[in-house]
Each structure stands twice: as C-alpha cells, then as structure tokens.
C-alpha cells in the first residue's frame, strides 16, 4: 500500500513535470508547477502518516501557502507582461521578450520605431 501510494504520486509528479517542460505557453508551465507543488505536499503528508512522525507537518502548511503566493505572482506576471504590445511580434501567443524571436528582432532592425 505504501509503495503503491508513492509510485502513484511519483507518476503524477512526472506527468506534471512533463507538462511543465513541454507546455507551449507560460500558463501551462505555471499549471504544471502548481501541480508539482501539490504532489510534494501530498508526498510529505503521506510520508508523515506512514512513519507516524509529524515533524515535517508545519512544512506542509508553509508549502501550501507559498505555492498559492507563487501562483498568484505568476498570474500577475503573465498579465503584466502583456502590457507592452510589441512583446509578441509574430502573434503566436509566445512573447518574444528576449529578443531572439523569429520576427521581433529582425522587424525592429529593419524598421526602427515603425510599430509603435
């Protein structure tokens, strides 16, 4: 029972990590990270129950709160980052904020100050 529980939690964490690595948008990556935080909380709680030792249980409460704060901060970041309209030059939903995008840097070099 113990082994099955932890194997199931590890599989869930691996799937959330797959979504985090492969997610096409930033929101999908935030969703995957939130899921991994939940899996970590569940693993700590299950481990505390199986060992009958509650020394890590304040960590469960703290990780829950920190996970919520991180998700809220990520949501604010997603919303705030789109205020500059030229962050996504090619319009594929992925912002080219780092300047290495396909159409963003070339367009700015060809037409300096063209799209304002």
């Amino acid at each position, binding site marked *: 029972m113990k082994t*099955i529980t932890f194997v199931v939690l590890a599989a*869930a964490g691996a799937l959330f990590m797959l979504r985090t690595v492969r997610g096409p948008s930033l929101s999908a990556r935030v*969703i995957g990270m939130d899921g991994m935080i939940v899996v970590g909380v569940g693993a700590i709680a299950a481990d505390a*129950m199986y060992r009958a030792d509650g020394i890590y249980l304040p960590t*469960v409460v703290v990780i829950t709160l920190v996970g919520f704060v991180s998700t809220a901060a990520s949501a604010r970041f997603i919303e705030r980052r789109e205020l500059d309209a030229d962050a996504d030059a090619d319009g594929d939903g992925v912002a080219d904020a780092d300047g290495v995008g396909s159409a963003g840097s070339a367009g700015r070099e060809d037409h300096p100050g063209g799209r304002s």
Partner: protein
Amino acid sequence: MAQVFVLAGAVLILFSALGVTRFNDVMAQMHFLSKATTLGIVVLLVGAALGMDSANDWTSLLLAAFLQMMTSPVSANLISRSTYLRERRVHEASETGAVDDVSTGRTEISGS
C-alpha cells in the same frame, strides 16, 4: 482506513495529472487542476490526519487541507483570468498590428 484515503487521494492526483498532460487547452488544464487536484489533496490530507495520533499533527494536516480548499479556487481564477486577458490581447494585437502595418506602409508610400 487512513491508508485507503491516502491512496485514493494519490490516485485522484494522478488522474488530474493525466488530464493536465492530455489536454492542450489551458482552460481544460485549469479545469483539472482546480477540481481533481483539490479533491485529491484534500482526501489525502484528511486520510493522513485520520492516521495521526497526536493532536498537533492532525490539526496541522487539517489546517493544510483547509488552506488548500481556500486558496485553490483563487489561484485557478487568477491563472484563468490572466490567460484569458493575455490571449485576447494577443489576438487584438495580431489583428490590428497587421492592419496597421499594411495601412501605414501604403499611406507612407502614397504620401511620399
């Protein structure tokens, strides 16, 4: 009894992870993350609280379950709202940006 609850919560979290991995829409993923994961972690934490003897331990686990139930809809709403606003803004920028590019190019050429 407690181990059955913990295993059921872990299986619910695994189903949520399967849904998050299979669906490619952010709103569908948020649907799984906000409902199945919340139910799974609450069942898991309540099951772990049933297996604890000390009052300090199971009150911590029930506090964590309560906080998870309070904060999970709020975070799901924040992520969904920011995703919706970003997609709408990207859509408008792609439409008006293309029109502006073509129109300003033509007016500049015809004016000069």
